[in-house]
């Protein structure tokens, strides 16, 4: 098996599994309990919080644990909207649904939402964001790495542009596809909140975090025992948080893997382009990209059959298209950058564990899979020519 769908979910690292199993067995006390078992659970939770903070070069008391990336994004978007006076949001058109649909929910509560379109390169410009901001803009949301294209958004420059214009909206950054793949620093990013998700960097599912700048105003989405500074009531998922912390520490200690993945991504793309005439990078070469995501466009082919033909050769990846009839759920991202409806877009996403041999085997498997599907699809095109 060659797993190149790490951007969907990366397999948990063995150390992460060990830490999670151990914590689930021994740290069963409720962190809110007054006795020693509660204290042990709290210590483990706070150690994990420090590990997550270190990954973001942030202060541990500014980290709120969540159930994952979606909840972290929702807490930021809905939470800021709940506490702000402004009734306008600026959101990039290529955000994850966690952000886009949270913004959409707010339109029912009287908010206006301005979507900022990317260029054909899948990048949102600071000028476009600044131009969309109005006097009552409460929140600006721009992701750091797009999950379908891998493009890196100029978040720091966007933050500076907002500051230069004197506007004071909250800048939320979905860094779910960036954590573990780009060196992160809350100061350098200039954001007010940052969302991350454990299972994208070999941590567990069901664990994520939101970093919130001190002084930023957020309303909790629900109330209860007021854990996590009152922003996220509910007994903490201690084993998942411990595992998240362990995963954060592992990727932080292995920053050299970033170059390893970038080299392999380039090698994968080069082999695919050589093997498949007509295939092309979905975004122009030279666009800043995260090291783990290769997005390949193949003209005039349905993506999902290619994916299954690839799966039959032991290679697991993802496919998308701009058109609803070609895949389940059209991609708003591919539509936003003008990918033609008829093209298949394949996303092959690497991890720090991917090897050169896997990359080479995947490229030749893709060549075979595309040939198999193209041969079958040719029947349909033949008919088109006749009628």
């Amino acid at each position, binding site marked *: 098996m060659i797993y190149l769908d790490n951007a969907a979910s990366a397999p948990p690292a063995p150390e992460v599994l060990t830490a999670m199993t151990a914590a689930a067995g021994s740290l069963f006390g409720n962190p809110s309990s007054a006795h020693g078992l509660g204290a042990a659970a709290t210590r483990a939770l706070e150690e994990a919080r420090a590990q997550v903070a270190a990954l973001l070069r942030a202060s541990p008391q500014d980290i709120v644990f969540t159930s994952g990336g979606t909840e972290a994004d929702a807490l930021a978007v809905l939470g800021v909207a709940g506490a702000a006076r402004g009734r306008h949001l600026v959101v990039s058109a290529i955000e994850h649904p966690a952000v886009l649909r949270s913004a959409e929910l707010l339109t029912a509560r009287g908010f206006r939402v301005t979507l900022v379109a990317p260029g054909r390169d899948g990048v949102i410009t600071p000028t476009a964001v600044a131009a969309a901001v109005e006097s009552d803009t409460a929140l600006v949301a721009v992701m750091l790495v797009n999950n379908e294209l891998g493009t890196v958004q100029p978040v720091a420059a966007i933050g500076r542009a907002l500051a230069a214009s004197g506007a004071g909206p909250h800048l939320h950054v979905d860094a779910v596809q960036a954590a573990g793949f780009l060196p992160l620093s809350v100061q350098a990013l200039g954001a007010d909140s940052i969302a991350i998700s454990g299972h994208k960097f070999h941590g567990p599912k069901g664990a994520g975090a939101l970093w919130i700048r001190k002084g930023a105003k957020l309303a909790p989405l629900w109330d209860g025992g007021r854990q996590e500074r009152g922003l996220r009531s509910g007994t903490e998922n201690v084993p998942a948080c411990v595992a998240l912390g362990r995963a954060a520490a592992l990727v932080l200690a292995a920053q050299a893997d970033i170059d390893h993945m970038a080299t392999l991504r380039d090698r994968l793309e080069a082999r695919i382009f050589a093997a498949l005439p007509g295939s092309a990078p979905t975004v122009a070469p030279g666009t800043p990209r995260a090291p783990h995501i290769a997005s390949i466009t193949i003209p005039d082919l*349905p993506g999902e059959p290619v*994916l299954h033909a690839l799966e039959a050769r032991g290679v697991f990846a993802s496919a998308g298209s701009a058109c609803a009839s070609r895949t*389940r759920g059209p991609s708003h991202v591919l539509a936003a950058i003008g990918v033609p409806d008829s093209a298949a877009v394949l996303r092959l996403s690497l991890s720090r564990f991917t090897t050169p041999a896997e990359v080479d085997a995947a490229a030749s498997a893709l060549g075979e899979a595309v040939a198999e599907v193209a041969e*079958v699809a040719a029947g*349909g095109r*033949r*008919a088109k020519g*006749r009628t």
Partner: protein
Amino acid sequence: MSAPPVSHAVLCRFGELFLKGGNRGIFEQTLAKNIRRAVADVPGARVETPHGRVIVHAPADRIEDACARLERVFGLVSISSVVETAADVEAIEAAAVTAALAAIERDPARGASFRVQARRSDKRFPLSSLDLAARVGAKVAAATGMPVKLVGAALTIGIEVSSTSGFVFADTRAAPGGLPAGTSGHGLLLLSGGIDSPVAGWLSAKRGLSLDGLYFHSPPFVGEKSKDKVVSLARVLASWQALRTLYVAPFTDVQKRLRDAGPAELAVVLYRRMMMRIADRIADRTRAMSLVTGENLGQVASQTVPNLTTIENAARHLVLRPLVTYDKMETTALARRIGTYDISALPYEDCCSLFVPPHPATAARVQDAERAEARLEAGVDAEADAVADATEKIDLT
């Protein structure tokens, strides 16, 4: 006065079976067998068939589980959760008062008015049906203060008396009707992941067919999720006792050869003719006497009378098309009621649209199809045999 001992049960009523004359015994036996299967996983449930009725006994806290399963048994027209007492007027009166109070407590609106409907199957019972209704009615009125309203009552208390027991109930629920599955013989349903074919299977089971399913899978172009989706649909049908076993036929190779054998616009008809041949073979092995499809007249461009004729020409068995005259909206509404709609609406493709030409023929002729099929090197029969032999069997029970 202490309440006499009572036990809880579900009274099952059947409809068309009365029409069956000399075959009635067989129909009742099949229905009782299907009811036993339906409640087999309800702890403590016990099925009895005294004097031409079916009663499912169960502990009080399992009655609701039993009702949920009996609502899915074809051949039943309605069911009632009942209290069984001795065949004794006082016991019946007490049970009726209890049932009335409980019904009002569940839904106060039903306290507006009531009536009593009584039936005795044993004429030796000392009161006539009308007299029994009047006596019980007086007790219920005294205990609850409700007025009697013979037409349009908010609450109807039902009483049935046999030689040994009285049954008292306050609610009657609809069951699907039709005939007990199996009483019309065995069939084979051509099942896909779409909306139509599960509904076609349900409708034919409702007319007494017992069914197996046959799904044509096209790996690798169609993913595992598409097959899982069809298995989920099959399990919903199995919960209605409409399906026993799902057969999964690997269709990719023959589909490729058929596509290459004929003009592209004929492809859909060629695929479906081959599906019929494969279905014939599975039907032979499962002793099915008919094939059931979700085909419809005019729903898609290729579903024309000439095309259906040419497709049917390849089948040896009777082909039943329960949905042939249904509008899509009618089919969809039934799919929602059956519980297959939400699964069918999942976006995983089956029978890979990759193989379907953009402009299929609307008047394919048998001789054109046969000319294309003659180009298959192995011949249509050997191709169909090979797929039937490679078919996977999934037990749904």
